[in-house]
């Protein structure tokens, strides 16, 4: 795997070069679903969340933003900010609809999926971000620390606290 390809898949810093369309496409394929889940944890509607993710990628593609040093970190920040702006601007005043599925359980356990969604929404943002990056973007804690610009210990703590809370909420489903 080339240096650039690996950096796009993970959180490694890229040398300050312009992202090509192919780079952006790789980022979208690799992190699109996780970013959609992340956006869904802020806004009620999956359609709105998709629009938010697309908006971020369009800006990246059109070069309207400064070249991010760590593309993955930038994407998470941008999705978060765009989602918060959308919410603040009354784009979606409705409360988060917990019945809308944006996570699907492989075994078809919809209740567990909805419970996990609800638990994720209740997590503090920084903990939620670490969980999504780790579980669905497939990043290591070191990569997340590098992307977030904080120490590995901080990220590990956030992750540990988040797992504890999630485990507690999903206990009834995990055994079943």
């Amino acid at each position, binding site marked *: 795997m080339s240096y650039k390809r690996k950096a796009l898949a993970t959180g490694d810093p890229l040398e300050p070069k312009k992202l090509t*369309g192919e780079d952006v496409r790789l980022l979208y394929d690799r992190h*699109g679903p996780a*970013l959609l889940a992340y956006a869904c944890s802020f806004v009620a509607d999956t359609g709105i969340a*998709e629009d938010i993710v697309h908006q971020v990628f369009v800006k990246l*593609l059109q070069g309207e933003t400064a070249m991010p040093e760590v593309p993955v970190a930038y994407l998470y920040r941008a999705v978060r900010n765009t989602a918060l702006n959308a919410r603040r601007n009354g784009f979606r005043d409705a409360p988060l609809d917990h019945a809308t599925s944006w*996570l699907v359980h492989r075994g078809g356990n919809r209740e567990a999926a909805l419970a*996990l969604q609800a638990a994720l929404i209740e997590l503090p943002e920084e903990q939620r971000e670490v*969980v999504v990056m780790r579980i669905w973007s497939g990043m290591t804690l070191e990569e997340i620390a590098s992307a977030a610009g904080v120490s590995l210990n901080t990220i590990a703590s956030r992750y540990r606290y988040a*797992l504890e809370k999630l*485990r507690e909420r999903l206990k009834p489903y995990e055994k079943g």
Partner: protein
Amino acid sequence: MTWQDDRFEHYLREFQPLKPRGFPWQTRRLPEWLRRLAAAAVVTVVLGTSLWFATHPSERGKTEIVTNGALVPEQKATGASLSLLPLTQLAVSDPVRLDAQLAAASRRVLPDFRGERSTLRVLAKE
């Protein structure tokens, strides 16, 4: 990370986020140089087409003076046509020749009032 964490991570991975709908890659803007090239190509085609039509006037571009054969029996040349562009060019370059050409054309195209079967004579009989 404990083995319980690993096991719980594994459980969490059983949940998959939805895939976002296809990204509209076609909305990408073309590079600046390509857009300029495309604009130049369009301008060239338009200018070329205009020039071609200006130098090769089609049949439709000609002004036709057609007289009605039933009313004007003495018409000598039916469907004789006068092209605007050559006449205009002639008017600019040689007005005298234009006058001569128009006079000749009028004799050929317009009804003859001097002949045996002139229009005036036909009207007078009616």
